[in-house]
């Protein structure tokens, strides 16, 4: 029973990971960019929510009307000033540029807000601790369920947006062949700006989720980035449903690991990630061996 509960908690946790991985995976699939400042942007959004609630008395339920547009605008600036410029010089430069950017953001947050850990929980009333009792003694937090549903909704919504709308199709086409979309009347720069803005809104949602379910501090972006990466890569970068699956895998691995030992939480997550990564690259080798084998067998018969 304890295992079932752990796995259930892992699934709910995985929902959060899918949420934080969503923007990263989206930007990688749309622009082929590895954005190392992803976690830092999530923290920036979380602090945005916190500051609005603390200083202006606007709870996150209202605060999003300011945070989302602000983050989207930041996305426009990010695309125009950093990503577009660095993406032209290969893989390495965007990685280094966003790395530098993340150091700036983290420390600016520290400069502004100090080392204290914060949480959005005080601003959302009962929601932060309310729960449903599923069975005798088995409780499930309402917030965790809502976050999970938000992840499914967001990933599903993005998937629908990408496959059903003209802008979504244009974003996918631009990801495949930036030069050719121009021939069809699509301004690739504008599309990439839209895509970055969307990614930044999803990052804001993830930042809000983190802030409500746990505590955060200016340097909390880095571990979030790692979790996002793990979820995205386990699920296969570039596939949104894969990202959900990757988030769930990571969440379950961590939950089960935590049950084994206190340190097992992180170790199991990292180990699962590496095993999946190595197994996937080894599949080619296995396929090779199989091909040679079947080649020999057909020759021999």
């Amino acid at each position: 029973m304890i295992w079932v509960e752990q796995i259930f908690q892992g699934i709910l946790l995985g929902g959060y990971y899918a949420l934080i991985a969503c923007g990263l995976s989206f930007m990688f699939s749309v622009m082929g960019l590895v954005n190392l400042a992803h976690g830092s942007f999530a923290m920036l959004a979380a602090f945005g929510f916190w500051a609005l609630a603390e200083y202006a008395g606007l709870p996150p339920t209202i605060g999003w009307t300011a945070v989302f547009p602000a983050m989207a605008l930041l996305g426009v600036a990010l695309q125009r000033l950093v990503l577009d410029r660095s993406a032209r010089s290969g893989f390495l430069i965007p990685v280094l540029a966003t790395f530098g950017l993340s150091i700036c953001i983290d420390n600016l947050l520290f400069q502004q807000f100090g080392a204290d850990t914060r949480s959005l929980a005080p601003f959302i009333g009962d929601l932060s601790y309310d729960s449903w009792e599923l069975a005798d003694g088995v409780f499930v937090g309402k917030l965790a369920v809502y976050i999970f549903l938000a992840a499914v909704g967001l990933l599903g919504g993005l998937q629908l947006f990408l496959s059903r709308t003209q802008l979504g199709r244009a974003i996918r086409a631009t990801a495949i062949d930036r030069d050719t979309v121009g021939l069809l009347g699509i301004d690739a720069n504008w599309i990439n700006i839209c895509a970055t803005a969307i990614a930044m809104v999803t990052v804001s949602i993830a930042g809000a989720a983190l802030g409500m379910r746990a505590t955060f501090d200016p340097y909390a972006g880095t571990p979030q980035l790692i979790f996002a990466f793990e979820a995205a890569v386990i699920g296969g970068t570039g596939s949104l449903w894969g990202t959900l699956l990757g988030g769930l895998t990571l969440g379950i691995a961590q939950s089960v690991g935590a049950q084994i030992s206190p340190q097992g939480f992180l170790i199991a997550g990292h180990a699962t990630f590496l095993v999946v990564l190595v197994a996937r690259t080894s599949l080619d080798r296995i396929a090779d061996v199989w091909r040679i084998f079947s080649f020999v067998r057909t020759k021999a018969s």
Partner: protein
Amino acid sequence: MLGTVESGEGRLPGPQIGAAHTEGIVLSAEGIVKRFGALTVLDNVAFALSRGEAVGVVGPNGAGKTTLLSVLMGALEPTAGSVHYLGQNVTRLPAAERCRVGIARTHQVPKSFSGMTVFENALVAAQHGGGHRASEAYDRVVETLRLTGMLRVANRRAETLGLLDRKRLELARAVATDPKVLLLDEIGGGLTDGEAGELVSTIKVLRERGIALVWIEHIVHVLVQVTERLVCLDSGKIVADGKPRDVMKHPDVVRAYLGSAVG
């Protein structure tokens, strides 16, 4: 090194290519199929190159010529079929190892080591592909650069070269690996008559040394000065193979190249 690659072809009973026939063959491909997704670029291509022979490859754009070269070199693995070099199956041997045993290529779009000098570009090839050490490698490089007319720019960084010199550098680098088989991909495009003449005499020297050649080129009149055999590829199939004069008159070649209404 080569022995570890094959998985038992030699032990198979039944009618194989006769020993007398394979004797002089240095490089051969059988039943090569290459697909990229739904697109079949090479469709059951068979091809054999004798020792010291020079073969020109012609055919319209998209016929699969460069893909064939990449399969022979090992840069691409065929979907089906096999490549043999000096009697050994090298189908699964990666490009670097094939180069070390004596197959070298040039790239259609020059891929120079841009931050290194011309001398250093060729030196990498002589040291790694050719297996030469120290001063022996230097001698090899100097000789190769002289032969390809690149000695005059030996100390220039490759990124400062013009397109024609970059193509020459492709040739120099391939030659510096001491190949037995040289695969050339459109190294003559855009040359003036004088330059084409120089290229032809360079290639003739290589032939005198016993290097076998496969040369893709669209400028047929340059090609025929060096090769005694032409292969025409169209839509991934070999449509003609023989003496240049016969191949260029072959109805399928005329159709493939110019369309059926002409000639």
